[in-house]
């Protein structure tokens, strides 16, 4: 970068400069506040509506008087619909998926990061190539395949194909590359088996990345809509997104059902938000690790 001779700053006198600076700060703050309000309003609206009875829900613009607040929407949700069952389905599918993905991706990521072996370039190249393809390409043949394996409309059909996540592997590979080789060498000299190196050394060090990955994988599976919609037919196997969508279509205009629908939506959104609050820092670091490095 070229260094020019020092010039006098082209701006106005210090007082004018400070004024325009504060003006700039004011405008910036205003923009941020308005943007923040816009970002949060729908969520707060959702929360507010879930505690309103069926008359207030239509007539009140935003909040209802506190005396009107009611938990009947949540009660009806669990009593009149099988939300509890569907919630459990989602918890099951998502948690099993995340753990499976975590294990496979971290193990393979470790292998790709810290070892050389024949075919490594080929494997990585193929994986990279498939990352460029949108997932919809494989939906049709995958469905066909699962049909022949009798995994359609079953939990296995959701969990097993999603055990492989190329994105996850690269994430872990990226982060494990940072682990100093000396650590591993020292462990080997101490007599650690390779798996123990993975289990006792690399994984504990990578906990922030694991945290980020868990959140991302959880979000991806919890909110997944298209593939479960295709795969699941029987409402015993439905996950939250599909069940809520169906409820939306079926009952959305019936008496009192908007409250139930919104209550269900609120509860479905809560787990991810809670998880995020705990894993914020790791998440941001993990999200951008893949991007900044390219």
């Amino acid at each position, binding site marked *: 970068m070229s*260094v020019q001779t020092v*010039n006098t700053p*082209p701006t106005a006198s210090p007082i004018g400069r400070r004024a325009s600076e504060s003006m700039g*700060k004011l405008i910036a703050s205003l*923009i*941020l506040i308005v943007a*923040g309000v816009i*970002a*949060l309003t*729908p*969520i707060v*609206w*959702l929360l507010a509506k879930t505690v309103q009875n069926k008359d207030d829900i239509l007539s009140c*613009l*935003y909040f209802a008087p506190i005396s009107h607040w009611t938990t009947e929407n949540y009660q009806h949700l669990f009593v009149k619909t099988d939300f509890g069952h569907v919630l459990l389905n989602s918890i099951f599918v998502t948690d099993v998926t995340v753990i499976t993905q975590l294990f*496979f*991706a971290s*193990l*393979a990521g470790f*292998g790709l990061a810290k*070892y050389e*072996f024949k075919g490594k370039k080929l*494997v990585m190249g*193929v*994986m990279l190539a*498939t990352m*460029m393809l*949108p997932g*919809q*390409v*494989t*939906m*049709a*043949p*995958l*469905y*066909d*395949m699962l049909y022949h394996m009798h995994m359609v409309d079953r939990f296995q059909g959701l969990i*097993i194909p999603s055990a*492989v996540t190329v994105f996850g592997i690269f994430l872990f590979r990226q982060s494990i590359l940072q682990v*100093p080789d000396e*650590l591993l060498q*020292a462990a080997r000299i101490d*007599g650690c*088996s*390779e798996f123990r190196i993975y289990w006792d050394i690399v994984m*504990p*060090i990578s906990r*922030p990345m694991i945290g980020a990955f868990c959140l991302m994988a959880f*979000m991806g599976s919890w909110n997944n809509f298209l593939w479960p919609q295709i795969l699941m037919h029987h409402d015993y196997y439905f996950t939250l*997104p599909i069940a*809520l969508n169906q409820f*939306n279509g079926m009952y959305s205009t019936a008496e009192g059902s908007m409250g139930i629908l919104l209550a269900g939506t609120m509860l*479905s*959104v809560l787990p*991810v938000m809670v998880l*995020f609050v705990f894993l914020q820092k790791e998440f941001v670091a993990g*999200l951008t690790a893949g*991007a*900044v490095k390219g």
Partner: protein
Amino acid sequence: MSTTLTKPSRPTEPASPGSRPTRAKSSSWFTAQHKLAPYVFVSPFVIMFSIFGIYPIIKSIMLAFYATNGPKSQVYVGFSNFNFMFHHHDFQIAVRNTIIYTLCSVFLQLPCALGLAILLNQKWLKGHSFLRLAFYSPNLMGTVYVGILFQQLFSIHYGLVNRVLASIIPGFSTDFKWLGDPANVMPALVLTSLWLYVGYNMVYFLAGLQAVDKELYEAAEVDGANPWQRFWAVTAPSIKPIATFVLVTSTIGSFQFFDLPYIMLGNGGGPNNAGLTIVMYLYQQGFITGDLGYASAVGWTLAIGVLAISLLQMKLTGSMKGND
């Protein structure tokens, strides 16, 4: 059990082979498992990936030339799938809608995200964490739930959007049809996805901004550059990798737009198919009508299109900014 980044304390100097007599395992087992380890670690993944990742890709290339009745029966039809697709009015509408949506996304969302990131990056700002959480929380909600929520917000007469707009803008009627009017469907979708994704892109930009070398800014200030010049001279080149990443991923993601319109338009393309996207078209043809072969053909067309555009984008941003 600590979860921090500190390394476990352990002496790091290499010991000579003979100085530790307590090595329990035999050396041949040791070297063997050291050599085998990578294969053992990576192979479960590779096997699963071949079955559920590679094989379907290959099969879908084949399937694209068939017409099927669900997974039960297949008939070879050669190129007629593609032929029909490109002449099919609905497909053309889907492509048009998807492209319009992508353009709006890219040219609206990204500048907004960048702008917010810049504002959020100001040193004098308080409540940085809270604001970041606020902007990001829409993205935490997940497309399905945002779709359900915004369908309610955009509804006629009682929806929040109409009621707020009616109180601000004189003459605005609360009966303004968003999702029921073909002309307003796309704006509604674009606005919803703006709300949903700005925070997500903003986080990336923020990370990129925070990684910019502060000294470059100081040097620019010393040189007498005003904020605008500082942006173009320092910020823009520094965040180029992240910006490219965000651009390419946004584009790819926009082309795959399905959940929001599907949910908001009542499980369909909306009035006059104003919200029909390519993936929705694929879903309807493949999984409702049942022709998996046609769905594969559509899928591949989408894939090739997306690939071409991504490569083009990367080339453009690479060569453009390379002329600094």
